[in-house]
Structures are given as C-alpha cells and as structure tokens.
C-alpha cells in the first residue's frame, strides 16, 4: 500500500505530501527528498530526446529494504513520488501506473480550479480524498 504520497513542484519544493502515520513521518519526507535526485537523473537521461518522447511514468526509483519508491513526472515537471511498502509484493507495475494516473487526474482537477494558484500547497479536499483512498485501498 502506498505509505506516502508526495507531489513535488517543478522547483523541487513539495506541493503536497502525506503519509500514513504509522511511524515517523520524517523518514518518509527524507526518502522523498532523496528520491528527487533519482528523478532528476532519470529526467535528464531522457531529456536529450524531445519532451514528447519522454515517458511520464518513471518506474521504480530505488528500493530500500522496507520500501520501494516510485516516480512519475508530468509534462510540466511536477513530480509525483510514491513510497510503497515492500511487504506488499502483490503490487504490480500496472497498479502503480494506474495509481499515478489517478494522481495525475486529480492533480489536473486541482489545477482547473481557478482559485488555485500554481505553486500553492494543494488543499483540495477532493485531492485529499483521492489520496486517502489510494493509501487505504492498495493495502
């Protein structure tokens, strides 16, 4: 199950970060932060080609013994990072992809709200609900 979900802005500051409060959240924040480097690395590797060819789903960024970290980048360089519990081995790539797709859709819905200024923290309840469902459902 998704233990932590984070939305990082283009400038690498978090727009939204949420984790299941089972243990110290700081650890997840740290993991997300370190994973940004990996994300950048992957982006730059693909960056030589035109942007269109770059795939949004980055896949497994790096595994630790307890967790796996997956990444996803939008065309506007907004990054979604998801930390998943390693114990849940049944999680397939497809599922992760679908989760990211849902995240992306919700994110665009947030963007559509004219009262949302890009760069603000995401405070949309709909987004929260979606993330909650994701964190619970996948487990």
């Amino acid at each position, binding site marked *: 199950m998704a233990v932590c979900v984070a939305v990082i802005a283009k400038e690498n500051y978090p727009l939204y970060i949420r984790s299941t409060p089972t243990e110290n959240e700081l650890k997840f924040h740290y993991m997300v932060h370190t994973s940004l480097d990996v994300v950048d690395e992957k982006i730059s590797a693909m960056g030589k080609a035109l942007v269109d060819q770059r795939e949004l789903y980055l896949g497994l960024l790096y595994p630790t013994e307890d967790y796996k970290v997956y990444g996803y980048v939008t065309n506007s360089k907004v990054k979604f990072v998801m930390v998943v519990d390693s114990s849940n081995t049944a999680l397939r790539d497809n599922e992760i992809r679908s989760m990211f797709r849902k995240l992306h859709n919700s994110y665009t*819905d947030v963007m*559509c*709200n*004219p009262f949302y200024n890009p760069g603000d923290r995401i*405070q*949309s*309840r709909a987004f929260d609900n979606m993330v909650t469902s994701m964190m619970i459902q996948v487990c």
Partner: protein
Amino acid sequence: MEAAAAGGGCGSGPPPLLLSEGEQQCYSELFARCAGAAGGGPGPGAPEASRVAPGTVTAAAGPVADLFRASQLPAETLHQITELCGAKRVGYFGPTQFYVALKLIAAAQSGLPVRIESIKCELPLPRFMMSKNDGEIRFGNPAELHGTKVQIPYLTTEKNSFKRMDDEDKQQETQSPTMSPLASPPSSPPHYQRVPLSHGYSKLRSSAEQMHPAPYEARQPLVQPEGSSSGGPGTKPLRHQTSLIRSFSVERELQDNSSYLDEPWRITEEQREYYVNQFRSLQPDPSSFISGSVAKNFFTKSKLSIPELSYIWELSDADCDGALTLPEFCAAFHLIVARKNGYPLPEGLPPTLQPEYLQAAFPKPKWDCQLFDSYSESLPANQQPRDLNRMETSVKDTADLPVPTQDVTGDDKQVLKSTVNEALPKDVSEDPATPKDSNSLKARPRSRSYSSTSIEEAMKRGEDPPTPPPRPQKTHSRASSLDLNKVFQPSVPATKSGLLPPPPALPPRPCPSQSEQVLEAELPPQLSRAPSQAAESSPSKKDVPYSQPPSKPIRRKFRPENQATENQEPSTVGSGPASAATVKPHPTVQKQSSKQKKAIQTAIRKNKEANAVLARLNSELQQQLKEVHQERIALENQLEQLRPVTVL
C-alpha cells in the same frame, strides 16, 4: 424555580433573577421550545430529548435568535441583552442566560434601558411577534411561540444570526411605532411575513432584510426607506431589487433561509432568477459557460476566503473543466450565499445542487426577462431615494473589493452586457463610487442585481461620452471649420481689447466695444446657416459694413465670420470694433442690455455648431486611425510571413 436555582448556581453569571410565577412559567416554556427546537423540531419534545450535553440544557442559538428577533427590538439592544445575560461569555444559552435575556427583553420593550438593574423590578412579560414559515402571527403571549428551525451553531454564526436578527428587527422596527419614526401600517408585518412564500421568498423578512453587510449603520438609512415601502406586496420585488442592487455581500439575504426548514441547499425560484441574471451578466449565453478566471473574479467579491472559495468551486464544478455552466454556477453561487449566511460547507455537493437536478428542476428561464422587466417598472420610482444610500454602501463595499475584481461582475444588467465589455478596460481605476454612479444607476432602472456597484460606476463612466476634444487650435486642417474660426475670431478682439479672455469656443463676454460684434452675429437665420454659407455671404458683405454705418448692426455679424474664414489678421478685426465703438457709442449702449441675451444665445448656437464640427472631425479622425491600424496589422502580417524565411 429553575431560574432561581440556575441563577444561584452560576455565581459568576448575571445576578440571580427573581421571577414571578407567570414569568417563570412563560420563560420555562419558551426555553423548552427553544431547546426543543434545537433537536431538529421533532414535535414538542421534552427538553430532555434535546439536551446538548448531559446535565445541561441549552437553547440552540437559532431558535433563540429568532425568538429575540421576534421581540422586535433593535439589533443593538439584542446585542446588549446577549452580552448582559452572559450567553456570549459562556457561549451558549443556558437557562440562566435565557431567562435573563427574556427579562431584559421585557425591560427593553417597556422602554427601560438594558441594564441588569432593570430586571430587578417587576416587568410585564416580553412580547414576541412571531413570524414563521407557517405564517402564523402570534401576538403577546410568548407561550404560543414556535421554536424556530434554524439550525445554526451559535458560536460560529453568532454574527450572522444577529445580523439576521438585526435585519428583521429593522424591518419590524419600521413597523413598530415605538421603534421607528416611519409610519408603516402595523398590519404590514404579518402580511409581509406571510407573503414570502407566495412571492417565492421563503423567508421574506430575512431575504429582504439581509441587505446588511457587516456595518449595520450603513444599512440603517436604507432600511427606513425600504421599510416604508414594505407595506405592499408590490414593493417586495422592489425591495428585492434594491437588495440586489447592493454589493455582493448582500446576496446572502437571498439564500439565507430559503429552505430553511429542512434543506438549506434548495434553491428557490427567486434565487434562481437572481443567479441566472448574474450568470447572464457574466456570460450572455445561458447555455454556454463561464470561464474560470471570470468566475474567480466574480466570486472573490463575496469576500470569502480563498480556500473556501476553492472548495466551493470543487464542489460545484462537477465536470472539473475549469468552467461553470449555468447549473454549476447556480450551485456555486448558492453555496457561497449559504456560506456567507453561516452554513458550514457540505462535504459533498448536496443532491439539490447537482447540475442534473438543477437543470431538471429549473428549465431554461426565458421568463426571467419578463419578470425582471416587471420588477424594474416598479424600480425607477424608488431608485432615487436610495441612490445616495446605495452609494454609501457601495462605497463601503467597493472599498473592500480587490481591484482585479472590477473587470467582471457587478453589472447584472442584461442589456448592458455589451457595454460591459467595452467598459471593462476602462474599469480598473474606477473604484470609488461617486454621485455619478447614483445617476448612472438611476439611468438604468432595470432590476440590476448589482453584485457590486463599482462595475456599474466604472461602466457608466466608460460609457460617458469621451472628454470633449481639446479645444482645437486656430489653424485647422479642415477648411470647413468656419465655426471654429468664427468662434475664435470674436475672442481675439476681446483679448486685444484687454477684456477677460474667454475660452476659445466662446464669444467674448459682452463689453461695450465687443457687444456690437456679438450683437451683429445674433441674427438667427444667418447664424444657423452653414459656415460655408456664411463664408460665401461674408465676402459680399465685407465692404458693406464700412460703407454703411447705419446698417452695421446687421452687417457686422458677417465681419467676424468673414475675417475668420479668410483668416484675416486680428488687426482688422481689432480695428473693426474700435471703429464701431467710436462711431456708434450711444445707440449701441441702449441696445446692449437687450441684445446681450441674444448674444449669449448666439454664442450658444455657435458653440453647438462648433461641437458638431468637432464631433464630425473626431469621427473622421477615428476612421483614419482605424484604417491606419489595419494597415499596420496587414504590414505586420506580411512581416511575419516573411520572417520565418530569414530567421532559422
């Protein structure tokens, strides 16, 4: 019994009450009603059933607020009462507070000052004028009161509830002889309160009265004229309109308790109309949608916080497309109004606000126009007394509005939609209301639901004729501008002769030496002739004046025109008046006074002609400007087409 015990129990509260038997009975009954109603109105439930917390019985703020409102006391008094009785301090209406409050109400109604000391003496029972959805009016005996159904948490909506109270009190004030200087028929309140349903106001009293934004004082002068007109049903739509004319914050009134009874999320007909008209003001086509930025500016005027607005948007934009269709817009509007009235925002979009439901429930309101027109007929007559007040409130309201919200909203006049677009670019700097705005509002008597008057002011200003073209110089490219020269010419001698220099377009003020010239120009038929004709005629008469002194008064009028068209030196003109003055001092003096008026008239005529010419000129120049613009655009296009070839 209860009161004494409760009074003794809370030592830190208001001083212990001593209630008579009758009072105790009344108060306890009232309290039971208020507390009972707090439970959602499940019949005359026992107070125990509605205990909010074990061991304490509190009366819900909503019923209490309504009860106080029914006492017909002014808002300030009710505020004082609430404070004195300690409800504010403890945050709820316990028995003690409630009884003290009732006692204070009785005191206030008896004309005593609202003080703790007042309640120590014997007082009659407080009187409550009931006004409920059911329309029953009870006078006198509070025991007949019904609990109200407003379920509003006291703390969070204290202000709102008291505002509503105030509004209604003000409304009722105008009818209660003790409170109001206005002589409204006392029977109007019942009628007034009963009518709401028939008019589509679920709560007319609240709807019409909720015209008050935070500052009550601003509304005070308003309420009175409105109260006076509240007598008849015909004025209710009027009031509705005037309320609509308020700033955005006023919209609360409409929603307020519109389905008050069970569903605050139900949109009434009136609200629907209002929303639709607002929609139209933003977007002429009802089947199209409003873009996000437009809607954002509009809703920002409601002065709700951005997160709340964001949430409301989330709720109402069902398809998340960043634009609002008409049902979505109505839902959003409704939510905003509800929020402003203190209702907490729902977790999800209520079923009655779903777009499908709204579309089904309310077919495309083509009839809005007619209704509005019918409303508007009654408006114009009453616009004037309100203008100033409206201005004041609009000033206060617009002061709060962020500047960027100017460019949309506020102008709900359907007819003026097109002009809104024109006026938009001119809006930004025109925030504060001016007397002009009231005039502009008068000029548009249609029922305008002004979400903000600033837009109309700005619009009106934008629509005002552009500033008159600057006084043209003497030399003009247009040869036909005889008027100008003709107009200028007289002024030259004036300056030459040392008289006060009139503005270029005006003939010189009559003076002994000048009056002749001006008088000469007075003959209407000749003056009304086209400048060209004057020019033609002038050369022929040029020599005449000099040779025929007796006929100078008639002929000389051409001299100025003459010299103007031919651009003769001022010296000739200067010599003219000088000679004229010397030749005929006496006869002219006698005629001066009578002819001065004519001179002025001719001057006016000249000015009008000058204006006409200038206007023509202006339009021609504008056309030229457009052509030049088009050329420029064409050239730019060409450039762009050529450019990619060169740049790569």
